[in-house]
């Protein structure tokens, strides 16, 4: 496309905000009470990261992988892709992240936690689990449209960034897909003029800043 510079992200926004949030609402209703299962899984991760045992890293990775797989299939592929054809490619990226978590975290056991996790990572994780779901309702959207960890991509991705930052060693191979999603989601919400479009880019920025701080 020789005229690519004349396109803006809004040229690729194929749906209205109303359709987007209705989609979330209908999805939330369809999977209820799955949200509670996801919340329990989130709490389990928190406990496992704080009180690290010998296999806690593998269990955390397995829970996260399950969350990514569910979001890839249950939300991105079967729901979001009905209004956004790009979502099927994103679903594939989420499936790849699932695989990476399974291989690096579950099979190879490379995700380990000692000393109660690092605080920036824990902070991000707590934010994803308890605060992020409140941002929608606080910015005027109905509770039925709230986005939860393990159910919707945004909090699942931020929680994963949190876990990765809380781990003993940085697993670079696990960071690419979540960081890319932060940009994709931020751009989508920004073109939808959503008041909370800043959340995902900020989470990505914080992650990168924390990684940079550790290196230098």
């Amino acid at each position, binding site marked *: 496309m*020789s*005229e690519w510079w004349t396109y803006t992200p809004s040229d690729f926004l194929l*749906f*209205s905000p109303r*359709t987007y949030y*209705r989609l979330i609402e209908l999805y939330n209703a369809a999977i209820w009470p799955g949200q509670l299962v996801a919340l329990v899984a989130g709490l389990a991760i928190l406990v496992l990261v704080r009180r690290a045992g010998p296999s806690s890293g593998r269990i955390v990775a397995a829970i996260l992988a399950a969350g990514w797989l569910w979001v890839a299939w249950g939300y991105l592929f079967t729901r979001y892709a*009905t*209004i956004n054809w790009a979502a099927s490619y994103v679903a594939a990226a989420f499936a790849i992240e699932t695989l990476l978590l399974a291989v690096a975290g579950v099979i190879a056991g490379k995700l380990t936690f000692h000393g109660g996790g690092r605080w920036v990572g824990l902070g991000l994780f707590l934010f994803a689990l308890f605060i992020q779901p409140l941002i929608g309702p606080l910015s005027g959207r109905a509770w039925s449209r709230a986005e939860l960890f393990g159910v919707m991509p945004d909090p699942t991705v931020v929680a994963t960034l949190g876990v990765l930052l809380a781990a003993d060693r940085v697993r670079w191979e696990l960071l690419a897909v979540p960081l890319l999603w932060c940009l994709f989601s931020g751009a989508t919400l920004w073109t939808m003029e959503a008041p909370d479009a800043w959340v995902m880019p900020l989470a990505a920025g914080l992650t990168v800043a924390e990684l940079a701080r550790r290196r230098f």
Partner: protein
Amino acid sequence: MQDARTLNRRSLMHLLAATAAVGILYPSPATAQRGPLVTRPIPSSGEMLPVVGLGSWITFNVGDDEEARDACAAVMQAFFQAGGRMIDSSPMYGSAQEVIGYGLGKLGTPPALFATDKVWISSGARGPEQIEESRRLWGVPRFDLLQVHNLLSWQEHLKTLFAMKADGRLRYVGITTSEGRRHREFAQIMRGQPLDFVQVTYNILDREVEDRILPLARDRGMGVIVNRPFRQGALTRRMERHPLPPWAAEIQCSTWAQFLLKFIVSHPAVTCAIPATTNINHVRENMDAAHGPLPDEAMRRRMVAYVEDL
């Protein structure tokens, strides 16, 4: 203003039943008062088309949401009832084609439908497959018009479309662009290919096509479909903050949307404009713009001056 989606399903069914009883495409008494529907001939055939059609980008991409699908069907119903014919879509518009197919299924595919779609795929070889999939989603036996969306792989796709037309599997062939993109190449294709239609962006503030594309379409005997008549709603939202000039009544405009549409369709080269909407009242209002007097050249200049001054 009542919003189509605030109707519950039962009232929607009542509405559909009631309007079906009145009969699609028969002019209502209100239509009689406003004068006949303004139509324009397709230059290559002489077939008449109402000067207002219906777009589907964003508005009809509602996925599997049943309530929203029914609201889209109600918009289509109101459109046909007001005498509308052309509905425009594209494989690029998410679920819009499927939602149109749903609406047509519900309405029993009104015979007046002028099914307008696009081919949008970089591989020329896969064009026919995409067109067949689009046709299946619409649930129509064939398209009236197929256009190469945004000139993507136009050489290959035009070959396919002209061959389909020669075989009687398609009635008209066109190309599209929007927001002033690739006008030089667009004009070159218009000079070199026997197109029936071109689709471009034109509205009271985006008038670039007046210089080259619209005169060329007239010279070459091509119909012109106008997209983004309201700049995707930004224009109507902006204008609604200001009063409509009192002289708008001279051309029977009671809303800004009608004012903006009448400006577009009064250009002699334009065949029709295709505003998109999710709202039954809006589709009626837009179809109303296809009635009554259209502005002459002097009035058109006055309209531009007024809007540019706001």
